[in-house]
């Protein structure tokens, strides 16, 4: 338990007591009913967890989405997929390590997988730029998706980024245009496309690899037009109002699903994806394969029309 979130403490304390109990028998005089006590404690922990994780606030989910032990794109690429064969570079300028892409097997299927990639430690975060891509990252993604499209490989995009990088070089090389081009071109790829928000879905930087036939989101991930802190800074004039902003923006998986802004919520193991990488990876594989099976039944032209219609529907207004 290296990284503890505040709201996890109630059951973590119980968990510690459980571990103490389990270690005790060797050393002390053990009452015979300790087995019962352990079982009771286990049940209590389970109940506590269920109660806790079914009532999380938007802000608590944001904490889970940013959890440093949460599986990142490469964790899924190695566990949900197999045989990953990475491809590099935008053929124009650079190989942006904030986005990874390459061939992979999904079950028995050959697909192209693309994902924004965060780092686990300082060294890796420097390499990955904290998962915030520059224009060349979006161009790399586009080049590789374009190739997948030409050779009929389905595309899976994994989204986990606080946003596109707000830096001088990114602006000088036209980050906004790079994202816009991806939005336009991804509309027209005729292969099946699935995107999954696995952690943070940070605004245009997330959408830049997010246009798809099916948009999936993990139970504790979020997807937002602006970071809760950024929204709080502008509308509340105080970044500390981020929890209120997170609530107001309706950014949780369940909120977005209710608003028809995502197609499917993928459940996470109890306590969040970081508690069980393998179980999470398996659940995601099942969801991806089921969606891919469905999409492959559809005629490519119809699939394109449906993709257009899906984005066409997004928006609430009064005709007047």
């Amino acid at each position, binding site marked *: 338990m290296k990284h503890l979130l505040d709201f996890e403490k109630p059951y973590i304390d119980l968990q510690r007591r459980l571990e103490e109990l389990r270690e005790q028998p060797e050393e002390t005089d053990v009452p015979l009913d300790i087995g019962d006590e352990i079982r009771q404690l286990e049940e209590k922990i389970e109940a506590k967890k269920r109660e806790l994780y079914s009532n999380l606030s938007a802000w608590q989910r944001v904490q889970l989405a940013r959890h440093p032990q949460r599986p990142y794109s490469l964790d899924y690429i190695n566990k949900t997929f197999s045989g990953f064969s990475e491809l590099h570079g935008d053929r124009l300028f650079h190989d942006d390590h904030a986005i990874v892409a390459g061939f992979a097997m999904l079950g028995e299927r050959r697909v192209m997988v693309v994902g924004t990639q965060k780092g686990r430690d300082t060294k890796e975060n420097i390499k990955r730029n904290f998962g915030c891509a520059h224009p060349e990252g979006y161009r790399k993604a586009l080049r590789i998706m374009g190739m997948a499209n030409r050779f009929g490989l389905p595309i899976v995009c994994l989204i986990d980024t606080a*946003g*596109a*990088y*707000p*830096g*001088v070089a*990114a*602006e*000088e*090389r*036209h*980050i*906004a*245009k790079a*994202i*816009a*081009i991806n*939005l*336009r*071109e991804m*509309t*027209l790829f005729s292969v099946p496309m699935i995107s999954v928000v696995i952690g943070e879905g*940070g*605004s*245009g*930087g997330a*959408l*830049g690899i*997010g*246009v798809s036939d099916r948009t999936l989101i993990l139970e504790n991930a979020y*997807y*937002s*037009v*602006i*970071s809760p802190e*950024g*929204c709080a*800074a*502008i*509308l*509340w*004039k105080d970044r500390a109002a981020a929890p*209120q902003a997170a609530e*107001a*923006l*309706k*950014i949780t998986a369940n909120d*977005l699903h209710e*608003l028809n*802004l995502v197609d499917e919520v993928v459940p996470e193991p109890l306590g969040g994806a970081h508690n069980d990488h393998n179980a999470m990876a398996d659940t995601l594989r099942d969801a991806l394969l089921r969606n891919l099976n469905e999409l492959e039944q559809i005629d490519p032209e119809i699939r394109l029309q449906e993709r*257009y219609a899906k*984005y*066409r529907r*997004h*928006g*609430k*207004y*009064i*005709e*007047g």
Partner: protein
Amino acid sequence: MVPPMADTPKKTLGLETVEPAVTPPTDVEPAIEKKPVSPGTSRKREIPQGLWTKCPECGEMIFDKELEENLKVCPHCTHHFPTTAWDRINALTEPESFQETEADMISVDTLEFTGTAAYADKLEKHKEKTGLKDAVITGIGRMGDHEVALGVMDFNFLGGSMGSVVGEKITRIIELATERRLPAIVISSSGGARMYEGMFSLMQLAKTSAAIAYHGRQGLPYLSVLTHPTTAGVMASYASLGDLIISEPKAMIGFAGPRVIKDTTQSELPEGFQTAEFLMERGLIDSIIDRTEMKARITEYLDYLCLNLKKG
């Protein structure tokens, strides 16, 4: 001539608060501040009756009628004052030719967004202030011999922010252009996506870009005109997708706001950063055109781009 009043009429736009894909709430007034000249001053013999505006760039006082006739461009130094969507439409299209589409579409507060101020109240305030229903006007008009589908944003309405109405109206006018095989032009002026509409706003980026994808696939030209300021979500969608990308001089153009960039990178910004001129030098913009020349130059571009356009 001695300027009748020396106040600086222009406030800053407050763009430092722009975050990626999002607009600031902008209670900012980018419009020109009028200074009525009292006939009772001691200089009254030198000053004609009426309204004057001081140019923030060159300091000259400009008679408002002259400023209006020059499309709110300073006749002394060509400083481009903020203007409105309707003024742009009137300046660009042939008289009586513009027919507005979706004129009555209005925003709804789907998320019931209440931060420090309620979105619903903001909408009412800006409708009243601008006389507009939302931040874009769309329609079909004529420029020279060309019938064009036109979308013109207005920064005065909630910072030109893009919510569902802006996204839907832009999408519909592009779709209409595709259907009627017309060139499309969008004149942008926006702080970005409208955060009061949450993810509905972000999805407008994808929706408008998708409409442009199909317009382009039909071999139809799309021109994007950037005006001060065009940033964030609008820049990350239709404003960046023109076959031609044109800008007014000195327009501020970018994705992230300068304050955010400074805070993130802890470094100084280069001179002229995120201006039209800076971005033309770096390959984004085809041409920078004065507002007074915009109609003639766009019409000329259309003469080339529509040369082989067959009416379907």
